[in-house]
């Protein structure tokens, strides 16, 4: 299974901490985002923010990176620590 985690305002608005999807063939993060956006208007809106960030297996990743079962993808807004 592919794990997808959501943080901060994204986690709140989508009302989900994490999802698990069965991805039998690796796909790009961009493609995964398209799949998630098709869930509903709300998902489409929240995942279309221009400043959305993505990490794959705990490292920042580009939308071109390919992911599959066993990977952990995280989606979140710009960070604001410190």
């Amino acid at each position, binding site marked *: 299974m592919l794990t997808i*985690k959501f943080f*901060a*305002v994204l986690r709140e608005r989508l009302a989900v901490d994490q999802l698990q999807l069965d991805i039998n063939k690796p796909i790009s993060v961009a493609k995964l985002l398209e799949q998630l956006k098709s869930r509903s208007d709300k998902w489409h809106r929240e995942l279309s923010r221009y*400043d959305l960030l993505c990490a794959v297996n*705990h490292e920042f990743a580009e939308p071109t990176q390919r992911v599959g079962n066993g990977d*952990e993808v995280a989606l979140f807004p710009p*960070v*604001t*620590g410190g």
Partner: protein
Amino acid sequence: MSVQVAVQTEDFDVADCYKTLAKHASCGAVATFSGLVRDDTGDLQALELEHYPQMTEKALQGIVAQAQQRWPLAAVTVIHRVGYLRVNEQIVFVGVASGHRDAAFAATSFIMDYLKTKAPFWKKEHYAEGSRWVAAKDSDTVAANRWE
């Protein structure tokens, strides 16, 4: 080279952090930065800090490793708190011991700039009338970009 990185709910003691850094004999220079909860409105009840547990320490270690590659450092300490914090509580500590003050200053400043823009923490402000997520600041991105 001694590195301490911690993400924790508990408060930290700057005196202990400083002692650890200063005991590196022949280091000569210790620079520190402490970030505290600031209340610009006078109405802040609490600051909530969320993070991405498995990624946070890895990101901080990576930032410290980059600082080590840029400057000769004897010791680095980075502590970041998560959870609910009240006004004037400590949020973050960055301390660097080095042989020279320019390296100590630059590394401390670099680590803070990168931590603000590349470590997965998010702040939410809680007020009596509701709460709001803190927006990322362009000035933090500008500050981080000057190191590239």
